[in-house]
């Protein structure tokens, strides 16, 4: 009897189910919530053979009566090895890891850890295996974050404060500021500016001559470790001290928008699609004109 041996195609990733099947999916792996912590979990999967379960950031962990969580301590050396190891996968975009981590949900953390484990086990082909739901969700997160970064680039409106600092307030759906900030660093190198994420209570502060912007949080303000006038800008949203000529520039900007608008071609639905209403609060051109009445 002739035996037919099927040779596996080495270029194609094997169809494997979710790695979560190796353990109870409702068991939690708790880490400190940092990127280094997430990468330490991936390291532990290989080093200590821990199963991939639901990855929960420590501040979100709810006590569990039935199962005890797996605790993974952050180890920067291990994290560095995982991060540097990604260099060998030329087709893999490391920004995907950042995007999923900044997406800041338990599912995104779990999915990206799952993706990294598969990447290390099976190579770059695994990242394209969209039959795997976790990998498919990572791809969706990539797109969602891309859109939000693009909108952040477009919808930042600076206002000049009394001390010459250009200040902008944003409230993106996802934590995209660390990924979007490079665009502003390259574009506005000769000005002092700050972009503040009002939802997550932190921002980036750039001063001319600095190579990169500095991350500032509410705690830094409380400790008095920050700029003069911007403290009021961040904490007192309604009564921020603006530069004397700022009102004039804002009126000019609004007038520009009114002038280029063709009323006969107004399409509010399309407009809301391109400029969602949730961004209007921080857009100069969407503020009511005080001189209109």
């Amino acid at each position, binding site marked *: 009897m002739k035996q037919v041996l099927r040779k596996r195609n080495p270029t194609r990733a094997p169809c494997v189910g979710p790695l979560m099947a190796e353990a109870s*999916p409702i068991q939690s792996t708790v880490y400190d919530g940092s990127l280094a912590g997430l990468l330490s979990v991936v390291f532990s999967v290989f080093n200590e053979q821990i199963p991939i379960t639901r990855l929960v950031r420590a501040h979100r962990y709810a006590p569990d*009566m039935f199962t005890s969580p797996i605790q993974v301590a952050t180890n920067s050396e291990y994290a560095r090895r995982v991060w540097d190891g990604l260099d060998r996968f030329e087709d893999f975009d490391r920004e995907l890891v950042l995007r999923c981590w900044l997406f800041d949900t338990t599912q995104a953390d779990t999915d990206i850890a799952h993706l990294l484990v598969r990447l290390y086990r099976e190579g770059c082909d695994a990242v394209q295996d969209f039959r795997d739901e976790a990998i498919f969700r990572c791809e969706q997160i990539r797109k969602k974050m891309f859109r939000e970064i693009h909108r952040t680039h477009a919808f930042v409106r600076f206002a000049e404060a009394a001390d010459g600092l250009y200040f902008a307030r944003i409230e993106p759906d*996802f934590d995209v500021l660390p990924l979007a900030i490079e665009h502003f660093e390259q574009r506005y190198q000769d000005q002092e500016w700050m972009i503040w994420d009002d939802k997550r209570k932190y921002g980036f502060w750039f001063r001319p001559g600095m190579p990169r912007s500095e991350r500032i949080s509410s705690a830094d303000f409380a400790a008095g470790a920050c700029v003069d006038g911007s403290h009021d800008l961040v904490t007192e949203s309604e009564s921020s001290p603006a530069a004397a000529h700022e009102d004039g520039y804002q009126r000019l900007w609004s007038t520009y928008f009114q002038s280029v608008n063709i009323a006969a071609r107004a399409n509010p639905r399309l407009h809301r699609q391109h400029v969602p209403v949730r961004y209007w609060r921080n857009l100069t051109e969407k503020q009511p004109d005080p001189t209109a009445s």
Partner: protein
Amino acid sequence: MSTFDFYSYLNKYTPELQAKALRLAAEDMDFARELYQRTATRAMQEPSDRFSAGTVELFVDNLMLSVLEEMRQERPEAMSSGARS
């Protein structure tokens, strides 16, 4: 834009859900553990567009009741030991 998923729900409501399972299992710890694990595992397998932050509680309650029913059929002795209807 909603970023709701069942994992986030579990982060917040694990104790509540486990207490519910324990109540339905009439304080039988093993029965409650399995009831909770099956419910949570099944909820995780559902696509996240099946429910939203507003409807997830109803969804999970229904799921838990159907799992309870299933477990009762598997183990009729649980009926006699007091798992509630």
